[in-house]
């Protein structure tokens, strides 16, 4: 067997992975292109690679300790890819790609490299397609929750609202909280931004988990607020004003996450003291 020059090996491995998982990557690309819930997927690999590059000084000094466990992980990835191709679906094939990336890192660099690249690898989970079984189960409850909270907000604001399931009747104007309004879009986007913000603004790894957890109720509440805004003013229910209002509510959610990070830090300092 020919001995490839060492710097070439990672590139060859990357090319082989891209070739082997081309159908899964194409499927992910299609979903990012066609599903507005998942269009942030385009940014996920870019940011993951940027983080790897940003931390180059750290991992360049690590000793390469190739681990035979990498082959086991690669085999697991190949098995998942086979299952995906046989009918388990795009999610399994896409997850197999990430598992195989982790296996390749283990094979070439060993555990120190895998540990160094754990965060970008975990961040890449945000680019995986929506898992249909979870999405379908979560959609209706989230729609109803958003409708309930939006109706509550409008009631509190002094407006007369009749809620019929996921339809809000506001003085004869009817707004339907459809699947696309269920909050998943806010949930994925805000969760992703929470992790990125924690990584950039705070060195503590637990902060990423804490802010991700805080993003869940915040996203649900923000989505309901967005629906309530559309119910409050017909002007905000359609077209550019509606899109801008959605963006503003998202930015406000992000600002709340910034405040939450400060609050968590104060609590941490208080308990440390």
């Amino acid at each position, binding site marked *: 067997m020919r001995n490839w020059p060492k710097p070439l090996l990672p590139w060859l491995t990357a090319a082989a992975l891209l070739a082997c998982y081309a159908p899964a990557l194409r499927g992910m690309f299609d979903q*990012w292109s066609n599903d*507005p*819930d*998942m*269009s*942030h997927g*385009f*940014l996920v690999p870019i940011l993951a690679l940027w983080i790897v590059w940003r931390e180059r000084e750290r991992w360049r000094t690590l000793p390469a300790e190739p681990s035979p466990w990498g082959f086991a992980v690669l085999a697991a990835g190949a098995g998942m890819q086979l299952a995906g191709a046989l009918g388990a679906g795009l999610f399994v094939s896409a997850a197999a790609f990430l598992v195989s990336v982790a296996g390749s890192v283990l094979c070439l660099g060993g555990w120190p490299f895998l540990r160094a690249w754990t965060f970008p690898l975990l961040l890449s989970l945000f680019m995986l397609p929506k898992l249909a079984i979870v999405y379908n189960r979560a959609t209706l409850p989230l729609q109803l929750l958003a409708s309930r909270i939006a109706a509550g907000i409008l009631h509190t604001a002094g407006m007369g609202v009749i809620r019929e399931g996921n*339809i809000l009747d506001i003085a*004869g*104007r*009817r*707004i*339907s*909280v*459809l699947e*696309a*309004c269920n*909050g998943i*879009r*806010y949930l*994925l*986007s805000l969760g*992703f*931004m929470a992790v*990125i*913000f924690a990584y*950039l*603004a705070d060195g503590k790894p637990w902060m990423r988990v804490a802010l991700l957890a805080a993003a869940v109720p915040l996203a649900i509440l923000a*989505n309901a607020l*967005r*629906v309530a805004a*559309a119910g409050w003013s017909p002007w905000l*229910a*359609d077209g550019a004003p*509606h*899109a801008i209002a*959605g*963006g503003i509510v*998202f*930015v406000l959610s*992000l600002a709340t996450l*910034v405040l939450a990070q400060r609050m968590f830090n104060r609590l941490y300092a208080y308990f440390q003291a």
Partner: protein
Amino acid sequence: MKTITALLLYAAFAACLHAQLPVPLGSAASFGVLAGSTVTSTGPTVVNGNVGVSPGSALTGFPPGIVIGGAVYVADAVAAQAQSDLTTAYVNAAGRVCPGPPLPGDIGGTTILPGVYCNSTSVGITGPVTLNGNGNPNAVFILQIGSTLTTAAGNSAVVLIGGAAASNVFWQVGTSATLGTNTTFSGTILAQASITVTTGAALNGRALARTGAVTLAGNAIATPSPAGAGPSVACAYPAGQVGVAYSSFLVASGGTPPYTYSISAGSLPPGLVLNPSTGAIVGTPTKAGSYSYTAKVVDATSASATSSCGPLIVGPMPVSSVPAPPSLMLVLTALLLLSFYLNRDRLRRRLGRS
């Protein structure tokens, strides 16, 4: 001798003007809409008569458009025969001798007597143009237009008086015809290329295009009754929604125009109003429900006809959905603001230095 010659010439001229036979439409006469390439309709179009396309096969917008008293023929033998008959009719109309003088570029505001008229370029109609049958119920009007026929948006209309009947009015158009918004038009349009009937226009006649498309947008089109037949009235579009503007027409035909429209029994949905002179029914329905009504038309000789229309079903206010912006837009916005936030000290220093 000179006097006798002049009288003979005048007689020949008068004969040319008055003694025209109708253009033979053949099987195309049963079509309210016929196109060569495509028929496209958006909104609540109602066609009283056949709708067809040949040799093209694209027909869209039915439904929501509806066809009453006829059928839809797409690239089949019936539509092909109608196209063939349309070609014969077009050539017949274009071949009629036009004694002149030529029609002006805009015939709005003029009164036209029976006969053949021509303009080698384009003709527009701004406001009403009156076709006066001079008391002859079989009076024929043939208008040969070399290029385009365009009616201005708003109150353009073809008004029939003195026994003129829509079934005996023929517009032979060299390229394309466009009926502007809310035009009330009468007669058969025989267009070489395409016909566009814009929003809210009503046509008591036919839109027949040889090679191109017929494009409709929420129109009422009624194939005219034969000359000499009593009046009849076609119903308006039978569906609406609370809070959404509705616009359609009762279209009268036959009898002796002008017509007067009314609702003789039942009622229109609350919020809708009938214009008694044009037949337009416009407004915004305010209450959901099913509304049956009887439309009545009275012509100039007081002959009348009724049609049981409906139900005109008014659905509840439409439900609007409020999806969030795409996640790519949300994340990009957030990343931009986050980069400002995280680099705020550096930015402040730079701004302070400058």
